């Protein structure tokens, strides 16, 4: 009798455990949304307020009138778009060189590229800061965007190269016979076939650029240039005793939405490629 119900019981237990873990893991997200709809009194109240008694959109209307926040949002979108476009195209070009062309020195350059994965970005920030200072690029978006144009991100090149290497050779050979150039083959044949890994890479790049705090903090020194992470961090004033939590959490919700949308669409590719390569978002 017991034997019959055991698998069912085990299944139920499994679902209970997994649902519990899901609730725990997504709790911050729930709390963020819930707090953004509360009043200031409710966020600072000594009792637990799970959901606001009278949800108010006050913080949302206020933040949509906050010029600094709107500008920071625009700056973030602008900076991500510009950086993403250049980085993606240059990474795709370099991956093509590493996967579809036989050239002397390829293995050495490829090994060099892989070894740069060992260098933490932070080890380079000091000399790069001095370099950009010499160029008078402090207080502009340039230091955040331009380095990516030189195929920034060895791990991404590696990921894309592995994929491009698997595309059948016959495709470009027949195109060659028809008189196509490398640039045409890269752009018209290889790129459309690599749509899936390109989506993965753009998501990783997007998340990395969107969440980046350290570089914008170093280089953008005026409020009108701030990107979202920098601006949102200024909303929390460490010298005050009460923080405007509904406002901060509203900004947080609006900052997180693009990440969640992108993740929702790209998760299928991401979860697979992380398992394969151990890469991180």
């Amino acid at each position, binding site marked *: 009798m017991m034997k019959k119900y055991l698998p069912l019981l085990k*299944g139920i237990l*499994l679902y209970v*455990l*997994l649902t519990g*873990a*899901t609730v725990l*893991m*997504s709790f911050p997200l729930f709390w*963020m949304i819930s*707090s953004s709809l509360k009043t200031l009194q409710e966020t600072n109240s*000594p009792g637990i307020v799970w959901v606001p008694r009278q949800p108010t959109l006050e913080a949302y209307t206020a933040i949509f009138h906050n010029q600094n926040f709107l500008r920071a949002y625009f700056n973030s979108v602008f900076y991500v778009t510009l950086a993403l476009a*250049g980085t993606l195209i*240059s990474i795709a070009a*370099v991956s093509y*060189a*590493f*996967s579809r062309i*036989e050239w*002397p020195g390829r293995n050495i350059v490829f090994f060099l590229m892989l070894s*740069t994965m060992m*260098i*933490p970005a*932070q*080890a380079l*920030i*000091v*000399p790069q800061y*001095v370099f950009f*200072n010499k160029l008078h*690029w402090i207080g*502009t*978006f*340039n230091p955040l*965007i331009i380095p990516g*144009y*030189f*195929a920034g991100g060895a791990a991404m*090149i590696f990921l894309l190269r*592995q994929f491009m*290497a698997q595309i059948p050779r016959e495709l470009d050979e027949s195109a060659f016979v028809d008189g196509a150039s*490398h640039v045409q083959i890269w752009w018209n044949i290889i790129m459309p076939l690599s749509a899936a890994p390109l989506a993965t890479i753009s998501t990783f790049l997007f*998340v990395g650029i969107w*969440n980046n*705090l350290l570089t914008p*903090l*170093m280089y953008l020194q005026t409020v009108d240039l701030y990107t979202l*992470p920098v601006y*949102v*961090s200024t*909303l*929390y004033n*460490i010298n005050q005793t009460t923080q405007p939590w509904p406002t901060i*959490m509203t900004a947080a919700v609006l900052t*997180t939405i693009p*990440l*969640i949308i992108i993740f929702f669409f790209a998760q299928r590719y991401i*979860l697979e490629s*992380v398992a394969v390569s*151990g890469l*991180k978002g």
Partner: protein
Amino acid sequence: MLIDNPYINVLVTAALTVVFIIASCYALGFLARSIARMSGASPKKQENTFAGYFFAAPWIVGFLIFVVVPLGFSLYWSFTDYRVTSAEPARWLGFENYRTILLKDSSFRASILNTLYLTVIGLPLEMAFALLLAVLLNQKMRGERVFRMSFYLPVILGFNTAVLLCWRLMLNTGTGIINQMIRSASQAFPLFSYFSRSLIFLQEVSAAFFLGLNTGKYNLLQKVIATGFPAENRVPLWVQSPLWTKMSVILLMVWGCGVMMLIFLAGLNNIPRELHEAAEVDGATSWQRFWRISFPLLTPYIFYNLVVGMIAALQIFEPIFVLYRDNQPIVSSTITMVYYLWQKTFSHFEIGYGSAISWIILVIIMIVTIIQFYFQDRWVTYDVY
């Protein structure tokens, strides 16, 4: 630069950069082809040489401009007292900076010990949680994809300032939701209260001991022990006390265990089914099968996660900046190497000293990575084309 509008400025710079990159593609391509021609390569090979360097040029040029040259300069500066702000030329100091950092600098020592703490206490917790989730997900049931997504989502949100501020709100000592839940659970169940207070005691003693290692003074440890078992109404002081700051960072690490989970999941998938089936026929329970079959076969993955986690712990910056920035008495209890590097370089503009710190970080990471590469063939097979 000359253009005032920051958006037009960067658009112009980006356009110039693209022109520069395309020009260097051609330059490098022609250079490589003429070398190939001189060495008497066939026309077909000359063409391939041109195309290869043409397409690889963005990376090669970027590598020179943004990696080789900066590393060279920073190596040179690390032996000098160069500052951006001072007009005097830099003085050559020899190994003075390195000697100061390694022997005298208490903040640097603190950052190493903090990383050690995160590695010794935080990483095992994070990995245990990741492994637990992976084992649960590996049961192959309906809706697995949704669970997997929700466990990975924190990695995407991870260190975004906005999400970290939400943690700051939840970790508030008095009104934060986490402490309020602990409080109400303690009032409802006396047993839970004892449990949570013994955890608090354990955590405070170990943290005080670690801070003692840091400063060489153990008065905080004596104070914690003298106070004895925490009183009835005690809750964790997440972002308030130097004893708890590292624990808050560990909490964030555990929350972001999704990457480790996926790696464990890949490891579990690679275990041949026959092994489990054979053991099941022999009457092994699933508990025995986990510890005798899965766990030993997962050790390479555990090792990989450990090494990657250690490198990540060295580089933690955002949580400390968002949670503890400017809170001077607290920040030193949780400082990481990269945070210290940032502080030193950008509050005092001591480029020479900062360069020496970055070279030490680089060497540490290289050592850890070499260990990882050395063991890597045990966990991943590269299918090199």
